């Protein structure tokens, strides 16, 4: 049977991998990059065969004409980013379609109605984190796009539950494979509304501490409505769904810790990196 061997959650703001807008403090930049470097090292030590990656969209793969809560890529390859104002490198990755199809079919039989795509493109939400975490682009991925960008969105509770479902499903997968789970997005940021550029470091630090202490239920209870979360964490803060999905997917043997957190208004983002790893 397969097993989950590591988890990483990280922001995916394109400025991390491209030219920063308006300049950014070198110390902050360095600490974020160091956190991502540590995450890469932990991932290598865990020796995964494939990655399940929870990420969001930015209206370049999904739109109001077709808006699934959870969309799984099950093709052979995925290429992107589709839209590229930040001039990120175009990459092509192998998709672990066998695991993706297993997740979708197990979901449909067990109460998680995933949508699927046989031709899912990549977005900066995958390309930016993976440029740091798997710089050789050599690990196949199962992309799971969570609607954290266009209301109505799945609840925080549902995202955490889908994470737990992924753990159970991976552990039922009859292949002797090692799987890491990645989540990307957040933390607090306002992208487009009048508050654009605001970062709520107090919220971000509370959220990280909740994950470190296994208090996801507290986050879920506090923000049952997307509107409540948006008030304190912005429209971009909705992406903590991907972090909660990773937390839900983690076996108790993997311990969480924060590798970096920097509130960076120049990047329009509370920028964090976290890992779940064995001792």
């Amino acid at each position, binding site marked *: 049977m397969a097993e989950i061997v590591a988890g990483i959650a990280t922001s995916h703001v394109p400025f991390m991998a491209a030219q920063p807008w308006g300049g950014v403090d070198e110390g902050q930049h360095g600490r974020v990059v160091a956190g991502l470097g540590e995450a890469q090292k932990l991932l290598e030590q865990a020796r995964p065969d494939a990655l399940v990656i929870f990420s969001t969209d*930015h*209206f370049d793969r999904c739109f*109001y004409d077709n808006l699934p809560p959870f969309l799984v890529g099950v093709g052979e390859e995925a290429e992107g980013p589709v*839209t590229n104002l930040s001039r990120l490198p175009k990459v092509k990755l192998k998709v672990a379609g066998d695991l993706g199809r297993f997740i979708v079919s197990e979901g449909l039989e067990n109460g998680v109605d995933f949508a699927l795509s046989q031709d899912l493109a990549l977005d900066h939400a995958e390309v930016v984190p993976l440029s740091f975490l798997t710089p050789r682009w050599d690990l196949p991925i199962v992309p799971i796009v969570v609607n954290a960008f266009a209301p109505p969105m799945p609840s925080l509770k549902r995202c955490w539950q889908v994470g737990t479902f992924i753990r159970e499903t991976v552990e039922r997968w009859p292949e002797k494979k090692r799987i890491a789970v990645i989540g990307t997005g957040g933390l607090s940021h306002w*992208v*487009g509304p009048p508050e*654009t550029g605001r970062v709520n470091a107090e919220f971000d630090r509370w959220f990280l501490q909740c994950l470190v202490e296994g208090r996801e239920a507290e986050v879920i209870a506090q923000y049952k409505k997307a509107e409540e979360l948006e008030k304190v964490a912005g429209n971009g803060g909705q992406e903590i769904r991907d972090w909660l999905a990773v937390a839900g997917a983690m076996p108790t043997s993997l311990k969480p810790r924060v590798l970096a957190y920097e509130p960076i208004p120049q990047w329009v983002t509370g920028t964090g990196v976290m890992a779940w790893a064995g001792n």
Partner: protein
Amino acid sequence: MSLYQVNKLLRDANCNAELAQRCCTEPEAVLQNYDLTPEEREAIKNWQVRKLYDMGANPFLLLVYSMATGNDMRAYVKAINQPS
């Protein structure tokens, strides 16, 4: 319903650099392909970003469209904070 069309125009331009360019050079020709109210049409043509936001256009799409059509983020932040 036409707010969907506003968001659709923004999204189409964000995903297509050529269309974004045409939004600047021949806005009338682009806008006629979308089922917009006269108020929406004027707000897009004159890039009244705060007005579009107040009408309910998606703010993320507004920001990216603004950048795709040649404005920088500072200009966008200034515009979105000016009452319509």
